[in-house]
């Protein structure tokens, strides 16, 4: 087990290098540079001021030097300083936004899994029946709905027309004056729309996957054996089939992490939630390269850790793996 862990962790390094390279290339190839946004079309900004700014941000050195410097700093855990005028360390900005996005995504994942598994099992047990077909259609519709559109409709319905839920931000204005319980309620009410919508749209894919995974397992010989032994269908499903069916699901969970974080970009921007997704979006538009790269790298680390956890979970569930 430990050696497996060590091997995996070692595998992270080339992965991270690769990601850092891709991230850097994207930024490097972008035309224009961040100094423009600070000085453009402002008559008071002289050409000397721009050169000054460029030197200050290290933009005047050749690309490979910049990459090398950046890599070196990352290795020491220093993500650099933001290009935006507030000049805060990138790490601070990321750490500020990270817990919010994590919380959002984790809750969403839990919701998705909690809903998808029962739906998937049910659909598999009654495969091809009318009910299965109806559920399938619903699930497909959920899958096909553009998340931002649902968010928009949700904002109109719940926010504007019914006025039940707040439609932007993470907390209300007088958040500080709430009791702890009040604070929790406040954050919860702000998150219902984004998480709910995210979960609904993510539910489709997952439940479909659970269904097909279950179907595949149910065809296996040992399931027939169990049935022949006279075990009730319920026991067959839950005790024997489920465990094995869940294995690919765990892998899928691991693989869907980057997608979730990516999806956070749109959701957070629409709902004005100060998470990593929105930070990324504003940084890209603001050409705040250190933050952009910092987020890409930290997201990469997170996804790798996430898939490692998924693999460990896999091993935990599947007894066959433990021996090897």
């Amino acid at each position, binding site marked *: 087990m430990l050696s497996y862990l060590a091997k995996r962790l070692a595998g992270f390094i080339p992965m991270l290098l690769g990601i850092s390279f891709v991230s850097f290339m994207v930024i490097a190839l972008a035309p224009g540079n961040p100094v423009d946004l600070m*000085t453009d079309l*402002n008559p008071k900004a002289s050409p000397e*001021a721009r050169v000054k700014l460029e030197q200050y941000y290290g933009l005047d050195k050749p690309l490979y030097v910049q990459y090398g410097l950046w890599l070196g700093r990352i290795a020491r855990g220093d993500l650099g300083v933001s290009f935006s*005028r*507030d000049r*805060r360390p990138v790490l601070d900005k990321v750490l500020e936004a990270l817990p919010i996005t994590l919380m959002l995504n984790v809750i969403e994942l839990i919701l998705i899994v909690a809903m998808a598994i029962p739906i998937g099992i049910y659909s598999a047990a009654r495969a091809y029946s009318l009910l299965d077909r109806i559920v399938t259609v619903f699930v497909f519709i959920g899958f096909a709905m553009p998340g931002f559109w649902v968010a928009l409709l949700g904002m109109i319905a719940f926010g504007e027309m019914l*006025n039940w839920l707040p*439609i932007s931000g993470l907390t209300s204005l007088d958040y500080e*004056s709430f009791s702890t319980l009040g604070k929790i309620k406040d954050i919860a009410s702000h998150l219902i729309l984004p998480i709910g919508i995210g979960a609904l749209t993510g539910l489709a894919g997952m439940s479909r996957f659970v269904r097909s995974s279950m179907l595949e397992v149910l065809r296996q010989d040992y399931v027939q054996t169990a049935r022949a032994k006279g075990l009730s269908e319920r026991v067959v499903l839950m005790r024997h089939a489920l465990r094995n069916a869940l294995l690919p699901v765990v892998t899928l969970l691991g693989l869907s992490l980057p997608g979730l974080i990516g999806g956070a970009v749109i959701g957070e921007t629409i709902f004005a939630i100060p998470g990593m997704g929105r930070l990324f979006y504003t940084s890209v538009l603001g050409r705040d390269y250190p933050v952009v790269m910092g987020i890409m790298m930290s997201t990469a680390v997170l996804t790798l850790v996430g898939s490692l956890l998924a693999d460990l979970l896999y091993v935990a569930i599947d007894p066959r793996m433990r021996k090897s």
Partner: protein
Amino acid sequence: MLECVGAVAIAALLAGCGSPGAPVSDSPPAQRADAQLPPARGDAIVFGTIGDASTLIPMLGSDSASHEYAGNIFDGLVEYDKTLSTLEPRLAESWDVEDGGQKITFHLRRDVKWTDGQPFTARDVEFGFHLIRDPATLTSYSEDYKQVQSFELLDDHNFRVVYEKPFAPALASWGSMVVLPRHLLEGKNINESDFGRHPVGLGPHKFEGWERNRLFTLRSNPEYYRGRPWIERVVYRVIPDQATQFLELKSGGLDMMGLTPLQFSRQTSSPAFAQSFRKYRYVSNAYTYMGYNLADERFADVRVRRAFSHAVNKQEIVDAVLFGLGTPAEGPYRPGTRWVNDKLPSYDYDPAKARELLAEAGWKDSDGDGIVDRNGMPFSFKILTNQGNDQRLKTATMIQKRLRDIGVDAQVRVLEWSAFLNNFVDTRRFEVIVLGWSLSLDPDQYDIWHSSKTGYKQFNFIGYKNAQVDELLERGRRTFDEAERKRIYDLIQEILYEEQPYTFLYVPVATPILAARFRGIEEAPAGISWNFPFWYVPKGEQKYVITR
């Protein structure tokens, strides 16, 4: 100061850009009567802002949110009055202008303190002055101050500046840029100083807290030299788009925001709205234009430019894009100000005349395909504008159609802001652009029209060169005589009118909306925020309770 209106027009418009011209209030007369309720201390006001500030040090911030926030914390030596025609004393009690404007002596108030208790003196201004001229300071605003030849500290509350040549915009430049607490910043690296995140100021409000990209709060400054503001707390909420801001406004989460023309005309007219909010409108200090690359020989012909100015239906654009909340523009000055030359007739929408002018310039449809051509070349080009500005895009789209009506084939192309500037504007690789300027209150427009400002990254990017205009611009900034300046700028406008280096399109109307409980609003050419420190909410209507 001249700044280009970039991605988000409305927020920038609201930020301190006022304007003269008949202001119109949309509140029913009855409500104005109960403005008799006496001022009371307390309550908070919540603003919506599209972007968060980057720093609170005025000279380092280049975005409008930074200036908006900092404007509450710092004051300048002088400031424009509510009619936007003269400068009023602020931190400077009085000043003497001598030698035709070459020498200015400022006499500062003696009763002003920084919020940490230290007295404000001329040494603070001296410090700020040297700081902004220091090449190590990352500021974009040093040009105005580089014109100063010498800065002489006379005593703690008086100083004298001598300019190399009289510089008319000089007086107004002594705003809040150079007023910084020397005792806190001397010897420190201003670019990295924590002061930008936790400033100590002397303005009507003092800094309280800042949660990045979420909330920025201020408290009233009890020692403010013009009297402590009635409103106890000021809050800025960062909400990145106006649709969401509007929803927040309706649910009570915001007290004030800048409405889009659509929101103003179609979504805020119900009785419920009239009861809880008041809408205002005033001409803003910006204009949108279509600029021609004069190095392109097709546009170097003035007949072509005039043709386009006649081909475009400016009123139609105002009606469709701004819902009527604007006026067609004929020159680079705001209608209703004293600097505008209102004797010039407008360029009417006249497609027949446009075709005539094009024909004179040699453009005729010789092959019957609907597009005019010359020497076998069809008149075809791209209109560029920047992403993120819906109004500009719609404007460009409408222009495209109207040009098509006279046989000119234009394609609209939208580009991301930085790429737009770098790859097309700066390199002069554009044909026609639709952009906007927001204007300073001083009539000097040297940077846009002078032939020396056509260099890389300078603002005369259309390449306009007119010797007479050059000379007039020079003279205009060197004299303090208002009548003389008026003559000069009138003449400049005549020339621009004849030459149409831009087709001036429209001047929008700013449309803020404010929760009804706020009193003390006085509409003026400067808008409504000019006397913000004196707004209040009567005792019985206060919404937020401010605890210590």
